[in-house]
Every structure is written in C-alpha cells, then in structure tokens.
C-alpha cells in the first residue's frame, strides 16, 4: 500500500456522521467515519448489525442525510446538487441491498425491475437491446431467461438477491455499494457471485464498497478492510495486514467467531468475546492513529503503545 498517495481516490468520507432522531435528541449511528476508497479497489466495511456499516453505505448513496463530507470524484455529494449532478451520481453509484425481500418492487416483474434504471436513463438502443441486457444480467447472476416474466414473490430469498445484483450491474456504474450481497446466497452460488463480481471489476474497472459481517468472505474478496463497531471505525488496514496483525480486541473477537470448515479445528477453537468495558476512556481519550503505514487503529495513548509493541514483537 506504499503507492496509496499516487492512487486515485474515487470516494472519500471525511468525519461522516449519520444521526437519527431519538426523542428530542439525536442518536448517532455513525460517529465520524473517515476513509478513502481508491479507484478499482474493493474496500470492505465489516461489522455486526447495529454497527452502522449499512448506514454508511446508505449515507454515501444519499438515502440517509449525513453530516461531514462525502466526496465522489472530487465533488461533495451529500448536500444540494443540481439535477444533472444528481442524475450522474445516481447512475454512477449503484447499490445492492441487504434485504432482497424489501428492496424489490413486489408488483413489478423481474424484467421491469432490472430495466427500471435503463428506462429512467434511457441506456438502451432499442427494445431488443434492452431485452438482451436484461437476459445477460439475469444469466450472469445465475438465473434463467424465463425468470424475466416472473414476480419477486415467486423467488426464494437467494434468487431475489440475485435479481438485486442484476439490477445494479445493468446500470454499468463506477462504484457499487454491495451491502451483504452474498449473505442470502447458497455456498455454491456465493463463489460464483464473488468470482463474477471480481471478473466484472477487472473488466470494467469497478470499485466496490463491500459491506459485510463475514470476515472469511472479506479476507478473500477485499483489498482493504475497515472494522466498525457501534458507529465507530476501530481498525483499518490492508486485508493481509489486518489478518496478520489484528490489534483491536473487537477485530480479534470477530476473527475468532468465524466458523471454520474443519471439525477438529472447530472443536479446539477458543472464542474471544469482546466487551467494550475493557477500554478505559474516562481520562485518556481514544484517537484514530496510523500505527503502521496504512494500518489505522482506534485507541488511547496507553493502548496505542501496547499495540505498537504487539506489532514489533511479531
């Protein structure tokens, strides 16, 4: 990651905060996230439900209002935009949602669901071209041509998610926010979809923001990983570095919870449970520190000193 400085930043979040009203007060689901996503990379945000990982994705695609800056290709996009800019951002950033049951229009058939973006932006030559695009995207996600005329309720959860992926891909966006895109898919299809996402990335220079809870998938799939816990990014590093030198106790607990496909290994496994009370931030406040080139971790001075020692001892 030594060439980070020279790499083109596609999307940048600066002190991104997202709040929801809680009575008269505000509840911050994302408490100030700062990270860059480079063009062509896969940047993963890993965390558990309630951590705010999905909310970050939704703030970037502007479903949720946010404070701070979301900068896409050098332009701040989380504020007022002209209509033309707005359309451009919508087309360029597509999302694959977490819950395929609620993200598909129940009253529309698959053909229309996939074509809706094409219709809105008129991204097809003629009816034949549109149909071809729909069929191609259906096939690429492991569905059949005959599925185009069916309705979402006729599909299993896994198949619905594939429709959602097809819908995003057909727009040919630059950045895809993939929110748990394979969680609902079967293992054999997961591998197909991951390979497909990788292939599309290579062919089209796509950039992914990959939101997931499963570190085993993220390890294989991502270039850089941010671990988020309760609205706060606690660690960020390249994929290799994060797995080699996990520093934050929360990262370690996530790692230990990944079920490994080996009975002997599983039976001897030690689970690490994370308890936020292991941090004493009453006096010594936590900071976001680059502890090694490209490896950031959240901690107070005492913890940072300890983490430094851990890295040196490796």
């Amino acid at each position: 990651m030594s060439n980070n400085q020279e790499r083109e930043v596609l999307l940048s979040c600066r002190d991104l905060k997202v709040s929801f009203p809680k009575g008269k007060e505000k509840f911050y689901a994302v408490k100030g996230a700062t990270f860059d996503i480079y063009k062509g990379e896969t940047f993963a945000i890993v965390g558990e439900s309630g951590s705010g990982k999905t909310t970050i994705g939704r703030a970037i695609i502007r479903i949720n209002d946010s404070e701070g800056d979301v900068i896409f290709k050098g332009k701040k996009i989380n504020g007022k935009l002209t209509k033309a800019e707005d359309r451009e951002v919508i087309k360029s950033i597509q999302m694959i949602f977490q819950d395929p049951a609620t993200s598909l229009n129940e009253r529309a058939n698959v053909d229309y669901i996939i074509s809706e973006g094409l219709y809105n932006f008129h991204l097809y030559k003629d009816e034949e071209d549109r149909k071809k695009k729909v069929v191609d995207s259906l096939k690429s996600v492991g569905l059949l041509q005959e599925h185009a005329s069916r309705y979402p309720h006729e599909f299993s959860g896994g198949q619905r998610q594939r429709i959602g992926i097809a819908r995003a891909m057909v727009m040919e966006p630059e950045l895809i926010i993939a929110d748990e895109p394979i969680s609902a898919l079967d293992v054999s299809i997961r591998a197909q979809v991951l390979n497909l996402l990788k292939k599309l990335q290579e062919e089209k220079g796509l950039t992914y923001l990959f939101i997931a809870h499963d570190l085993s998938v993220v390890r294989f799939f991502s270039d850089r990983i941010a671990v988020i816990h309760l609205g706060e990014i606690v660690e960020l590093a390249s994929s290799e570095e994060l797995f080699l030198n996990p520093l934050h106790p929360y990262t370690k607990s996530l790692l230990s919870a990944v079920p490994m496909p080996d009975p002997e290994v599983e039976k001897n496994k030690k689970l690490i449970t994370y308890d936020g009370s292991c941090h004493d931030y009453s006096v010594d406040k936590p900071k976001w520190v680059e502890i090694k080139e490209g490896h950031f971790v959240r901690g107070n001075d005492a913890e940072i000193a300890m983490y430094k020692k851990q890295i040196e001892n490796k």
Partner: protein
Amino acid sequence: MEEKNIVLSAKDVVVKFHVRDRVLTAIRKVSLDLYDGETLAIVGESGSGKSVFTKTFTGMLESNGWVDNGEIMFEGKNLLENKKNRDWEKVRGAKIATIFQDPMSSLNPIKTIGSQITEVVMKHQGKTKAEAKEIAIDMMDRVGIPNAADRFDEYPFQYSGGMRQRIVIAIALACRPKILICDEPTTALDVTIQAQILKLIKDLQKEYGFTTVFITHDLGVVANMADRVAVMYGGQIIEYGTVEDIFYNPKHPYTWALLSSLPQIGVKGEELYSIAGTPPSLFNEIKGDAFAPRNPHAMKIDFEEEPPFFQISPTHYAKTWLLDPRAPKIEPPHEIKVLHQRMVEMTSKGGAFYVE
C-alpha cells in the same frame, strides 16, 4: 454409533407440491435414521429440500404440498398416518420442536415475551399460570437472558436479534422435546452472536439430552455442531457419514464442490472454486444423478441411471457412480486433500485466522 437407539426413522419419503398447475417433486425418496442424542446436520443449498424434508416430521408442509410416499417412524408410530391437526399437535412442539431462521417472524410482535413462553408451557404441560411463569423465567435464565424476571413483560422489539433467538429456543425447549429441529437458526445473526447461540444449543443439548437436527448451508457451522452430516442435493441425500467422514474423506463430487468453494479456504488473488450451473429444476423428472450436469467427472451412466448408495465404511455412504468398482479412479480436488492442513495452518500462529 451401532449401539445407539434410533429415535426417528424416515423411509422413502417423497414430497410433492402443486405450484401453478404443475407438480414439483421436492423430496425424492429420502431415507434417514436419527440416533438418540446425536446432532445430525443436514447441509444443502436452498431448494435441495433440507427444510421441506424435516417439515414432514411435524406435519408443517405448506398447504400446496403433500407427502406422496414413505413413512416416518417415531415412538412406534408412523407420523404420516396423522391426518388431523389435533394428532399432529401431540407431536409438533411437544415432542419435536422447530427453531426457524428469523426469530422476529417466529415471535408474536404484540405479545410479551413472557406470555409467549407461558402459553406453550400451559398448553403442553397443563401448568397453571403461576407455575408456567416460574418455568418460563427459569427457561429464560437458562438460555442466557440477563435479568430474566425483569424482561418477562417486555415485547420482542425490545430484544436484540440474538436475544430473540434465545427466546425462540426457550419456547422450543419449554416442552422438553425429544427432537429439536434447528432450521438455519443462526443465519440471520451476527457471527459473534452465532457463536454464542451455537454454544448455547450444544450446552442445552448436554443438559436435556435431546436429539438435534441442524439444517444449515454453512459448513463452518456444521463442523462446529455436528456428530453426523447428511448432504442434500436436488431433493435427495447424496452422502452421509460422521462429521469426520464428510470433511476429511468426502466421496461425492457435490460434497467436494461444496467444500472447495468455501471462501475460508480461498487464496487471495485466485478465483474461488465455484460449481458451474444451477441446481436442477424439480418440476422436471430427474434422470440419473441430479448433479451430473454440473459434475466435471460425470460419466455416461450418471445421465442415465440413478446411482445407489455405496458403502465406504460402516458410518459413511455416498450416492455416486464414482464408487462403483467399474468406475475410473477419480482423485478428489486438490482443495479437499489440503483442507485440513490449510485450516490448521490458518488457525495456528501466523495464519489468517490465528488470534491470540
């Protein structure tokens, strides 16, 4: 395994569904013995029939589905002779309980947690309200709800996903069932919560001695939970054996493919092993081996005749022509042979999943 008692025995079960004027055969002649006190994992993709098969144990098939053939022996009776709902109610919940994937949809959102547990206790055990409350709080305590008595009157929305699943488990176990069917119980949960729930089910099993059928598509979870594993594909069990048989000496090419395609064993920068194609459509009659069209090792006979079960060891059986003495010797893929070694490396010092 030999001395173990069979608690439930399914024989030649065939399940069909009416779907828009067509008949879909979801389960194609499946037989399975369940041993007392064991954890049997049923692994398969969606549509492989793993849920549908176990739903026949409790008569919970959707209204457009029916058991076309077979018998399911439980406590000396063929469960499939149950015709009325009243007959099923003596089994369902009372002797064979099921935990589903989504705890929110298994719980009634407008009734308190406490009342949902006591309801079951009162109905099945004939206890008074006060007795039932005591049992309910005790159960909540056992499944790890802190301050159970205080949280008795709360509603499901006040519980987190993991806590809700704990409640569902408490409800399922309130009647001390003989068999607990866990249908993807942790799929909707976070990994750290999943680890807790899996441990909870194992601990409770030790305490209560029930038999667990664990339905999942996650082979990591299988490795963690199972004593025995049955792999399902296209409405049939295609391989079964002890957990060691399946993970360390798999024989069916579909089991090979499933294990090889796991992201846990993926090497970064390389393509993940993936199974080409999609599972077969169960609307059509399947000729030969259902996996043949996706199987790179498929032989001519795979497309013509359904393979029988071949015995590999007293515990291990696989339904593939590759085990026929006349078949050519096919080595399992490289990923399978190095799986254990790779997993050990990954979880020991210096490995990606090593944690101090």
